[in-house]
């Protein structure tokens, strides 16, 4: 993984007289000693207490930082102030501070969310704010996690396969699509790949072993986008059922709850995919209809043939490896 933990401290801000002096940066997983928190864990008036996970693959613990409160801040602002004034070695990813790059995903008071889109004044006043890295992915350092699992899953999604152009389209120079046919899948294009939905999904969050056979909500949304595309000709239903674990999803809608782009992942992507899988694999009337009309469903192997990750691979849980299993046969 090339991603170095991004630590980009802002310019130091003036601390008020009561602020503790900056700590000397410690190396590696060392736990940043906290400037004495108050006995109840809450900051006094006009101050905020941040309880931030510090550590790496060697282990770690929460460290407490107390800062003066400032109006109009989001959690990421305060984390940057911690970096600037007390813990210059605190690692966190961020980029746009506008909820569009999907970098600053973390768990704020236990809830997955973007630090840049979580206003401090929406959190319980007077209580410490807990910030932990996304739990589903291996930690690199502090708030930075290794999300490469998602990139490997992305390679297993069979890409867009447009139908051939008609003679009219060839003459016109390109495809022609009706607005009502393309607008449904536009919702999924809003995804910023923050991977909060993947983080909160209990199928992999609480069951590591499922990572080898579960695409996750972000990639179900991607498959739904392709399946609903008016030009796409691939049929991913058997692949979704047999190789990508669509049946493991028990539609508890946590992915929808945490999506910062408010994509209705469950209602508009996962459940429609589940219904399409029912058409392909579980509905005897639909099966009969296909037989009568001489239509076939594409097997998982056929659907996966065009995906970039197609090919033999194996993953043993607990072992760092390259790649995750490519879709096999049905």
């Amino acid at each position, binding site marked *: *993984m090339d991603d170095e933990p991004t630590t980009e401290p802002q310019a130091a801000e003036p601390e008020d007289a009561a602020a503790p002096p900056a700590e000397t940066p410690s190396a590696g997983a060392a736990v940043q000693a906290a400037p004495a928190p108050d006995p109840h864990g809450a900051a006094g008036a006009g101050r905020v207490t941040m309880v931030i996970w510090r550590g790496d693959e060697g282990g770690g613990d929460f460290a407490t930082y107390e800062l003066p409160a400032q109006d109009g801040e989001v959690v990421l602002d305060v984390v940057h102030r911690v970096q600037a004034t007390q813990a210059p070695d605190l690692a966190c990813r961020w980029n746009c501070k506008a909820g569009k790059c999907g970098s600053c995903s973390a768990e704020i008071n236990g809830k997955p969310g973007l630090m840049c889109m979580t206003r401090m004044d929406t959190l319980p006043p007077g209580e410490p704010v*807990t910030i932990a890295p996304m739990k589903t992915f291996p930690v690199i350092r502090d708030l930075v996690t290794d999300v490469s699992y998602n990139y490997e899953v992305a390679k297993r999604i069979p890409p867009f396969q447009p139908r051939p152009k008609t003679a009219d389209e060839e003459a016109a120079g390109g495809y022609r699509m009706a607005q009502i046919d393309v607008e449904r899948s536009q919702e999924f294009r809003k995804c910023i790949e923050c991977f909060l939905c993947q983080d909160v999904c209990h199928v992999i*969050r609480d069951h590591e072993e499922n990572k080898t056979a579960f695409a996750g909500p972000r990639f179900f949304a991607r498959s739904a986008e392709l399946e609903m595309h008016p030009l796409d000709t691939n049929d991913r239903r058997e692949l979704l059922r047999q190789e990508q674990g669509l049946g*493991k999803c028990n539609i508890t809608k946590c992915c929808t709850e945490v999506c910062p782009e408010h994509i209705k992942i469950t*209602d508009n992507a996962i459940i*429609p995919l589940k219904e399409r899988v029912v058409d392909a694999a579980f509905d005897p009337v639909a099966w009969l209809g296909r037989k009568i009309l001489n239509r076939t469903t594409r097997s998982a192997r056929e659907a996966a043939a065009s995906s970039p990750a197609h090919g033999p691979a194996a993953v043993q849980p607990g072992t760092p490896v390259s790649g995750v299993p490519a879709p096999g046969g049905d």
Partner: protein
Amino acid sequence: MVTKEDTIATPVVLGGVRGGPTNVATLRKDRWWVQPVTTVTVLTAFVAYATWAAFINKDYYVGAAQHRDLISPFYSPCLTGSCVPGSHPGTVLSWWTISPALLILIFPLGFRLTCYYYRKAYYRSFWWAPPACAVADAHNSYTGESRFPLVMQNVHRYFFYAGLVLNTILTIDAVMAFRQPGYGIGISVGTVVLSVNAVLLWLYSLSCHACRHLCGGGLKLFSAHPIRHRVWKLLTPLNSKHMVFAWMSLVFVALTDVYVRLVASGTIHDAGFHF
């Protein structure tokens, strides 16, 4: 030479060390447990009441003796030989000797049990998989709905079809309730209750995800099927309120049974008027 077209495997660590504490189920500080507790309370109360009402096998029909034609939704259509006179369109199963409600309730039970909303509700609140978002799953292993018996959730659309038949029958019941034997046409609290019940059940059924898929959601090209696209567009706003309709219809169907039961047993009088 490596080109950008080559797929370069990214090292993926499975089973790597995760950040955050390992010894707590969640770091959430809000009252995440309120929702599962409420769900367990309401669903348990409903199941207990519905079971009692289904087995009690009496006081489910208000007939001509009270100048009414009100039947509980738990017992309609009443198809067995043991049905109260006047409550049934005709005996279909004369050999069925236990409560006729048991014949009927299997369909709405199956419809709600396999409903995408209720699945969320009971997986969270009863099975704790997970109890709430970012709260640890209560089970060591998990296969979801990919194996028997939960793979049977995929029969949902067939219970939806059965639900449409029952909704039609309950709608006919509500219309027929406006006939007041001996008086003519009239309106009473009972007719309003049955009508509202039928409307809520229709809203619940029409907002169903399977319904939305079957009516148009499964299409690749809306432009080739303009009528189905229009139906899909009509159903989509309803679908976003499926949870609301699920709870409203669940509670009201029980209240409808309670009302009919109270009138049938003579506990209260069905107030109304006739033309």
